[in-house]
């Protein structure tokens, strides 16, 4: 069962395949007879639609039989009516017979036939549409007619033209949808009346035989029905114008012509005359115009002008137009307009407009005088600004907004009467942006530059201006010693300390300078031989000398500026107290024989006194004896402050003069330094007051030889005061000799040696010209008590000459850093 079924399926499948394979070439499809039609009842044609061809060329055969006969005929004419058709001519057409028609399609595989079609010739009659439709309009007695003509449809057989057709005509206005159909009858023309004038009509025709169907509508024809034919309407005179007050022209609007050719004539008569003239010139001024040349133009005369429009139906005349040429002058716009931008002295731009009168106007004769008016506005503006210019032909425009584009126009008019001309063509001018803006830029640049310069200048002033400030204002002391880092002091890194103090760290050098000048103390002992060398040159004195000497040096290095300030500050109370303290100590110890402090009696030294005390205060030495030391000698203070290593011991030593021995080496160490310092000081001082005092403390210090106690204390007090030398001798105790030795003074800047621990031998300044050469040997032989004593006698002259100092003043500003290493 199963196998059979399978095999049968296979067979069916194969069959299907074969059939599929055969469908490429198969029986032709079934043709279909579309229609049969007789145009004139005598012949007819049939058309068919072929079926599918089956992939092969097909032959179509039409067979027919008549109802009266059994015989089957084939189509007599396949060609006449075109492809897939059959034409039955007269011979094969019998109106009273019904034809049974089939079409057979045949190819190699087989054939197929259409369904039979029964054809009654009389019932299939439908003629073709009429041809050669033509339309005409005819106007008679103010009525429009439409005349349509056409021809009957053409036939294949030209011989059979005797057929009678019935015709129908339909028409409509072109824009409408509904047709109006008119039965025409048998004639091939028709006249349509009662048409609307001025409408375009579309017309079609069709025809029919006495039996059968109506033909198709013929192709459409259209015609414009002309308007009603009437006399022309009134023309209208638009205007009359004289461009130059010599000729004039009138224009009119033509009347509607009613579809007929209309002729316009202009007629005019002049005031006070009956005669009517016709326009002399229709052409010159264009269509619908009349030009009156000079000969025909009169002034102070009124023209009565009319225009007559005439056609076949009649004529019409416009309303009269009265013209006095004097008052219809309307010139042409001005020409040659130039816009020019100029700059005034203030560099403000202004606009110069120039123009010429219109070329037609003869202004030179005086016959026509023109006045001008111009208008302008910014390009984006809305409102015109109008300026009446008068008779001149140029105008200057000020106060235009810079940076804007202006439109300018000019028109003109005869004076007193007449009309403004048209505006001239637009002229554009761009006003450049204000020059002041550029100026502003320049000024801004200048301002910025100058302010920059000022800034730089002021910066420089600030950087370097302390000096100037110092001259203008009293020197402001810097926090010299106060500011010293005590830690640094303790650690003993003097270099760091100094560098910290360095001249820049110090108050400005100028202040240094001042101080140097003000507080130089020179102990003149052996060098000047004031002190008798034979008098026990004890170590004490030596030390003291050194101290004093170093004092001078210290004064310089000691940030001097601080001192006076301190003085001032403390002068009120603390200074007094301290000085008292100091004095008390002096008295107590009695050892402070070296009264190196400034004498209160001396005005110049008064500040010094306080200074010293202050300095001590400022130094804030840890040691209690510091004050004492300071009192004795600022040198000590200096040493203490600046040279910590040395100072540690020095106060003790100096404090107790009994311990000179221990002090001595320290003094020695200081020695070189002091030398230098003193040198420098001297070089810096301009004017120095040197106080040479003799110590009166001989009594108080028992271990000191009175002679030894003789010393010279040189104070440099102030620049502005005369150098004075005060030499104090023990013998003249209580008396102070004040000598001003400006010229012959000597400068002791060097300490040559320390004699007997308490005599300092000073060397005169080698650089000063006044320094005698012999002083060198003196210095050298300072150890010699004789010499030193001898020098002592001449101690009066120990003041350094101010001149020499001045000489050296400028060059040798002391840089503290230069002697820094010496304090190591």
């Amino acid at each position: 069962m199963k196998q059979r079924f399978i095999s049968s399926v296979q067979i069916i499948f194969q069959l299907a395949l074969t059939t599929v394979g055969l469908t490429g070439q198969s029986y032709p499809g079934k043709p279909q007879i579309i229609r049969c039609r007789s145009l004139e009842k005598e012949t007819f044609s049939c058309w068919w639609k072929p079926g599918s061809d089956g992939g092969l060329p097909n032959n179509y055969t039409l067979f027919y039989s008549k109802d009266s006969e059994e015989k089957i005929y084939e189509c007599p004419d396949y060609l006449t009516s075109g492809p897939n058709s059959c034409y039955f001519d007269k011979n094969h057409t019998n109106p009273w017979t019904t034809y049974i028609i089939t079409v057979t399609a045949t190819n190699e595989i087989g054939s197929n036939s259409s369904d039979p079609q029964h054809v009654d010739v009389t019932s299939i009659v439908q003629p073709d549409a009429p041809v050669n439709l033509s339309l005409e309009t005819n106007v008679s007695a103010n009525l429009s007619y439409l005349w349509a003509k056409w021809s009957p449809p053409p036939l294949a057989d030209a011989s059979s033209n005797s057929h009678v057709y019935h015709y129908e005509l339909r028409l409509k206005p072109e824009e409408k949808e509904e047709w109006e159909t008119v039965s025409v009858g048998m004639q091939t023309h028709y006249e349509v009346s009662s048409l609307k004038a001025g409408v375009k009509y579309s017309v079609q025709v069709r025809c029919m035989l006495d039996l059968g169907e109506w033909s198709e509508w013929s192709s459409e024809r259209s015609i414009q029905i002309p308007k009603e034919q009437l006399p022309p309407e009134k023309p209208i005179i638009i205007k009359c114008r004289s461009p130059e007050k010599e000729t004039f022209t009138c224009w009119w609007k033509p009347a509607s012509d009613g579809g007929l050719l209309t002729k316009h004539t202009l007629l005019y008569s002049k005031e006070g005359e009956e005669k009517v003239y016709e326009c002399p010139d229709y052409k010159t001024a264009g269509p619908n115009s009349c030009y009156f040349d000079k000969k025909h133009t009169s002034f102070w005369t009124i023209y009565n002008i009319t225009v007559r429009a005439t056609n076949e139906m009649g004529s019409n005349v416009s309303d009269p137009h009265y013209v006095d040429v004097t008052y219809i002058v309307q010139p042409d716009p001005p020409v040659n307009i130039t816009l020019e931008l100029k700059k005034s002295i203030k560099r403000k731009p202004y606009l110069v407009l120039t123009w010429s009168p219109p070329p037609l106007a003869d202004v030179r004769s005086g016959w026509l005088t023109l006045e001008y008016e111009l208008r302008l506005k910014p390009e984006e503006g809305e409102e015109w600004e109008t300026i009446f210019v008068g008779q001149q032909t140029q105008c200057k425009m000020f106060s235009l907004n810079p940076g804007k584009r202006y439109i300018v126009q000019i028109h003109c008019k005869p004076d007193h009467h007449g009309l403004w001309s048209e505006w001239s063509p637009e002229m554009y001018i761009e006003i450049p942006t204000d020059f002041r803006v550029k100026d502003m830029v320049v000024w801004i640049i200048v301002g910025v530059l100058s302010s920059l310069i000022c800034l730089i200048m002021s910066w420089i002033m600030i950087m370097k201006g302390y000096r100037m400030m110092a001259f203008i204002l009293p020197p402001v002391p810097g926090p010299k010693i106060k500011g010293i880092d005590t830690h640094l002091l303790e650690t003993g890194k003097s270099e760091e300390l100094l560098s910290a103090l360095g001249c820049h760290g110090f108050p400005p050098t100028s202040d240094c300078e001042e101080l140097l000048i003000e507080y130089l103390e020179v102990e003149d002992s052996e060098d000047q031989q004031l002190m008798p060398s034979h008098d026990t040159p004890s170590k004490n004195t030596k030390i003291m000398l050194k101290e004093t000497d170093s004092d001078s040096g210290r004064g310089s290095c000691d940030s001097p500026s601080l001192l006076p300030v301190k003085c001032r500050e403390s002068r009120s109370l603390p200074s007094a107290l301290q000085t008292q303290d100091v004095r008390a100590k002096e008295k107590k110890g009695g050892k402070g024989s070296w009264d190196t402090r400034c004498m209160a009696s001396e005005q110049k030294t008064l500040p010094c006194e306080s200074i010293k005390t202050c300095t001590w205060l400022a130094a804030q030495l840890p040691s209690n004896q510091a004050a004492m030391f300071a009192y004795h000698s600022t040198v000590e203070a200096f040493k203490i402050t600046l040279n910590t290593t040395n100072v540690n011991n020095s106060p003790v030593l100096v404090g107790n003069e009994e311990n000179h021995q221990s002090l001595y080496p320290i003094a020695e160490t200081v020695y070189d330094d002091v030398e230098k310092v003193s040198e420098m000081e001297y070089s810096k001082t301009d004017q120095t007051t040197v106080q040479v005092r003799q110590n009166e403390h001989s009594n108080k210090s028992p271990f000191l030889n009175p002679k030894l106690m003789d010393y010279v204390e040189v104070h440099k007090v102030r620049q502005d005061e005369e150098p004075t030398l005060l030499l104090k001798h023990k013998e003249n105790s209580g008396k102070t000799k004040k000598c001003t030795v400006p010229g012959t003074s000597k400068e002791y800047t060097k300490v040559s040696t320390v004699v007997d621990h308490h005599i300092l031998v000073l060397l005169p300044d080698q650089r000063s010209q006044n320094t005698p050469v012999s002083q060198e040997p003196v210095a050298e032989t300072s150890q010699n008590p004789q010499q030193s004593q001898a020098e002592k006698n001449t101690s009066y002259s120990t003041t350094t000459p101010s001149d020499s100092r001045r000489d050296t003043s400028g060059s040798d500003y002391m840089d503290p850093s230069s002697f820094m290493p010496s304090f190591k």
Partner: protein
Amino acid sequence: MAAAPARAAGRADAVAALALLWLLVCAPGNAGCHPLTVADLFDRVIRHSGRIHSLSTALYAELEKHFPPRDNELGRPARKCHTSGMLTPNGKEYAQKIPREELTHVILKLLQAWKEPLSHFNQHIEHHQELPDDSLSKAKQISNMVHELKTGVEKVTEKARFFLQVELLFLFPIQMQSMGIISNSLNGMASSEGTGLSISNEANMMSDSDFIHCFRRDSNKVQSYLKILKCRIMPENSC
């Protein structure tokens, strides 16, 4: 009621007359004033005639407003001005062809022809109660200004004659002859020449607005002729 405008007009006249008088008195060589050139004088009379024309235009408009034309006078009927009989150049070319002296004479004759009718008109118009005072004063002003203009033109032409050293002929018969000759050459120029008397009569026959219309036209004529005359005598002066 008419007294006030009359006074106002009188003041205006006085001012105008003074101005013109100054114009006339100030002859060249007279140290009292700046010597006026002929061109200046011409400008003055031209301006003066222009003012007259403007006044008459304004007056004409007022009269038309108060006395609208009758219905049968559609548009403007052909008016017969009493001066329309005078031979005057009716175009630029004629005005330039005619001798200067004759042109001057035409101007003077036109002004002369209006003197008397204007004074009549002034008397007549004062009876019109419906006319505003402004119109009456205008009429009065016009009348006076015409008189001044005539004087001014005479003075100018006199000066111009010096200027040109041309003899100005004031003899009417000769003028008429020459005008007659010219009139033959002029196209469209009225040919009839009326007498002064007939002119006055014609003026009386006219309506007020027609009268002013005619005057306005003649004032324009005078101004145009003066301009032409000026540019003919002094072509270099802005001509």
